[in-house]
Each structure stands twice: as structure tokens, then as C-alpha cells.
């Protein structure tokens, strides 16, 4: 069985190769746990659940690693605002996350590494980058020098100067002491009262992009098969993960897969009809949890999808049709018609 899959790095549909024949190693960027999951998160897990189940159905042994970013500015901001311990927010949000995933029928990943469990290894990676002159210190942290990566911008498919001309957001391009606007933070020095871990450069916390490169390589090893996530992660997150691996001479992911956005083109109309359901638990409270999977199955994973009352209703109806078929044929069993399965798999 050969699954041909679009690869963001090469802009081509090409065979998804297996490092070990019969096995597939996948890293999926998981949530930053500071609030309830929204419907975009639902898509970014359902698409890969469908991929995983399909691969398993064809007999491939899948190892899916998907992290939890349990330390981040957004978690700290909320903790400060609500005067609560940051860990309490991270743990409760992680619980809500997996509860929603169970309701969606998304299988739990084989490994769920948390960023805070890998701080020591992240510090090690940053030290290595510094020793190779690929990172430098500023007043507020340690930064990656993107100019050492010859093909920086590969996943974005955009010249870095064009991106800068378009005006990026400050998190990406900010901080005045940076040597190049695209340079990004690897280690952020902590302010008083903020959660902090020790490092040779001063107490602080890891940058988001360093977390995922460390956790993917630690658990899946060099040259793992597939790295995936939502299209919004292509740049800067995935580009910056890749940049660190390239700077260290490490063989990183061999294939990159990104799913399209969930778009609300119905604007106010959507908010009236659906009560503006952008929060995943709300959607699951109102509709058969299978409806969202059905809606996504009827959309190509790279296309944007609208989630509105009309298409959710259509999905519920499609499910009713399949359920009634299942009820009237439940007692019938025989060898599955092979031509049907071939058409299903090949096309």
C-alpha cells in the first residue's frame, strides 16, 4: 500500500515513505492548554485521527506522538489575570482537551509528552545551538540566529523579505535586540513571580519552537516519517522547529502535512443560528459528536471548511442514513465486496 500525500516542503503529492517498513512515526503539534478547545482544534485532531485509523486499517503500525504545551505566555497571562496557579490552569485544560477528544472519537496518541517534562533536554539543545554560533543572548533571552539556516522559509514558500514587507506580528518579528527580524526566542528569561527553570544563562522558560523539536526527536528519533498540524503552524512554528534541527545537522521530519482552516464565512448569520459555536465542547453538546467527523470527511483536508448550521445538519442527516442502513443490515455478514474496498482505498 502506498499512500500519496501532499508534502508542504516540496509542494508535491508524493509517497509517504516509512523509515521502518510497516511502521509510521508521526508527530502532531498538540494544544497550548490555556482554554477550552475550539472547532479548529477539532479539525486538527480529526484529520490526523482519520489518517491514523486509515493507516492502521491498511496494516501499518502507527506511532503518533502529540504534545501538550503546558507552559506558555498565554497560560501565565491567564494565571495572573485570575490569580490562580498556572499549573492548575494547564492541568484542567488538558483534562477538558482529552474529554473533548474522547467525545469526538479521536484515539489518544501513543505518547503525550508535556513541555515541562523536557526542560532539561531543551536546555541541552539550546546549549548546542550556542556552541555552533547558531544562537545568541539578548536582554530578555536566548535567540536563534535564522541566518545560519540556508533554506530558512522552506515551509512558508515565501522569501523572508516579502514576509517582513507584509508586516508580521510582534511575537514573530519583534524584540529590538534581535540580529535579524526572523530570529526567534529559544529561552525566555523569567520576570519575578513567573514560573522558572534553571539554565546556564539564567532562570527562565523554553520557547515554544524549541519544545516541539526536542520532544519529536527525543521520542521518534532522527528522520521520523511525518510532521503535521494546522496550516497556521507552517510558519513560524514548523519552520522554526526545522531551522533548529538543520542548524544542528539533525535529520528532521521527512514529510510535512498541514490541514486547512475552519472558516466562519457566515459571520453574523452563523452566530445567530449556531449561537456562534466556536468552542468545541459547545458543538459537541448540541450535535451528535460524529457529525463533525462526517462534515470533515466530506471536505478535502487541505481545503478550508465552513462550519455552519446547514452543513452540520446535512452531516447529521447523512449519519441518519448510514445508521438506518446499519440497523437494517446489522444481522447480515459476509466477505466484504473486494471491488468496493479497492475503490475506497485507491481513488
Amino acid at each position, binding site marked *: *500500500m*502506498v*499512500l*500519496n*500525500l*501532499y508534502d508542504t516542503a516540496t509542494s508535491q*503529492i508524493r509517497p509517504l515513505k516509512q523509515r521502518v517498513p510497516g511502521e509510521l512515526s508521526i508527530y502532531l503539534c498538540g494544544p497550548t492548554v490555556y482554554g477550552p478547545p475550539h472547532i479548529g482544534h477539532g479539525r486538527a485532531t480529526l484529520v490526523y*485521527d*482519520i*489518517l491514523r*485509523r*486509515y493507516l492502521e*486499517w*491498511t496494516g501499518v503500525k502507527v506511532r503518533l506522538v502529540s504534545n501538550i504545551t503546558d507552559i506558555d505566555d498565554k497560560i501565565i497571562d491567564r494565571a495572573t489575570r485570575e490569580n490562580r496557579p498556572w499549573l492548575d490552569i494547564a492541568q484542567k485544560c488538558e483534562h477538558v482537551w482529552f474529554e473533548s477528544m*474522547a*467525545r469526538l*472519537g*479521536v*484515539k489518544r496518541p501513543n505518547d503525550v509528552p508535556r513541555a515541562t517534562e523536557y526542560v532539561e533536554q531543551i536546555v541541552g539543545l539550546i546549549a548546542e545551538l550556542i556552541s555552533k554560533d547558531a544562537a545568541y543572548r539578548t536582554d530578555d533571552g536566548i535567540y536563534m540566529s535564522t541566518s545560519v539556516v540556508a533554506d530558512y522559509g522552506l515551509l512558508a514558500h515565501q522569501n523572508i523579505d516579502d514576509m517582513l514587507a507584509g508586516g508580521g506580528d510582534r511575537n514573530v518579528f519583534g524584540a529590538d535586540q534581535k540580529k535579524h527580524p526572523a530570529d526567534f526566542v529559544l529561552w525566555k528569561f523569567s520576570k519575578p513571580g513567573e514560573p522558572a527553570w534553571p539554565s546556564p544563562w539564567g532562570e527562565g522558560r523554553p520557547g515554544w519552537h524549541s519544545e516541539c523539536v526536542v520532544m519529536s526527536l527525543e521520542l521518534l528519533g532522527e528522520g521520523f516519517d511525518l510532521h503535521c498540524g494546522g496550516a497556521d503552524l507552517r510558519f513560524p512554528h514548523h519552520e522554526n522547529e526545522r531551522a533548529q534541527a538543520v542548524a544542528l545537522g539533525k535529520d528532521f521530519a521527512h514529510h510535512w502535512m498541514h490541514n486547512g482552516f475552519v472558516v466562519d464565512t457566515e459571520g453574523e448569520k452563523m452566530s445567530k443560528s449556531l449561537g456562534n459555536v466556536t468552542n468545541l465542547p459547545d458543538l*459537541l*453538546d448540541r450535535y451528535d*459528536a*460524529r457529525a463533525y*467527523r*462526517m462534515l*470533515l*470527511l*466530506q*471536505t*478535502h*483536508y*487541505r481545503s478550508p471548511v465552513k462550519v455552519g448550521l446547514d452543513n452540520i445538519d446535512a452531516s447529521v442527516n*447523512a*449519519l441518519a*442514513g*448510514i*445508521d438506518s*442502513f*446499519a*440497523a*437494517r*443490515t*446489522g444481522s*447480515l*455478514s*459476509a*466477505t*466484504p*465486496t473486494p471491488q*468496493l*474496498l479497492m*475503490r*475506497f*482505498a*485507491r*481513488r
Partner: protein
Amino acid sequence: MNDDLNTPVAMGVLFDAVRRANVAVDAGDNQTAASVASAVREMCAAIGLQLDVAKDIDADALAKAVALDAARAAKDFATADKLRAELQALGYLVETTKAGTTLRHN
């Protein structure tokens, strides 16, 4: 599916098969219906689409689901969590919404 995970095309095959199975059942051709229906069930498994099999859920599990809803209504969340864990151990996906608890085979 092997062509860039083209699920809309795969779903077309699946819906077409559902129609064929229904037609075969109506015509009393149980042999065709059985083969096509089994293929549909295979496809559903491949994409993680659970068929509604509520009728196959045994009475003991249903009783636990009813007790779970009662516990939630009484705000006895310890009991509700215990019942949920028992149902999950029996191999059910337990979904609790405002409308109540539904069970599906995992």
C-alpha cells in the same frame, strides 16, 4: 484515500455502497446485501466512523448510564465518575451532554 487522503471521493464510494445494500435488502437479495454491508462496515472502521449500535448495548450498561445521569442530576460527581470509569472499562465510549448520557461501542 491513497490519493492525498481524498476522503470526499472515498465517502462517495461509501454512500454508493450504502444505497446498493439498501436496494439489495429491498429486493430480498441478502447475499449481495451482506457482502456490500460488510464492505461499508470496513470502510467506516477505516475512517473512524462509528455506526449507531445502541440496540446492541446490554441492559447492565444501560442501567449504569441511567444511574450516571441520576448521579449527575444529584451533583454526586464521585459516583458519576465511578460509573463512567466502569462503562469505559466495559469498552464503551461514554458521552455525557446536557441531554443525558449516550453509549457507543469503542
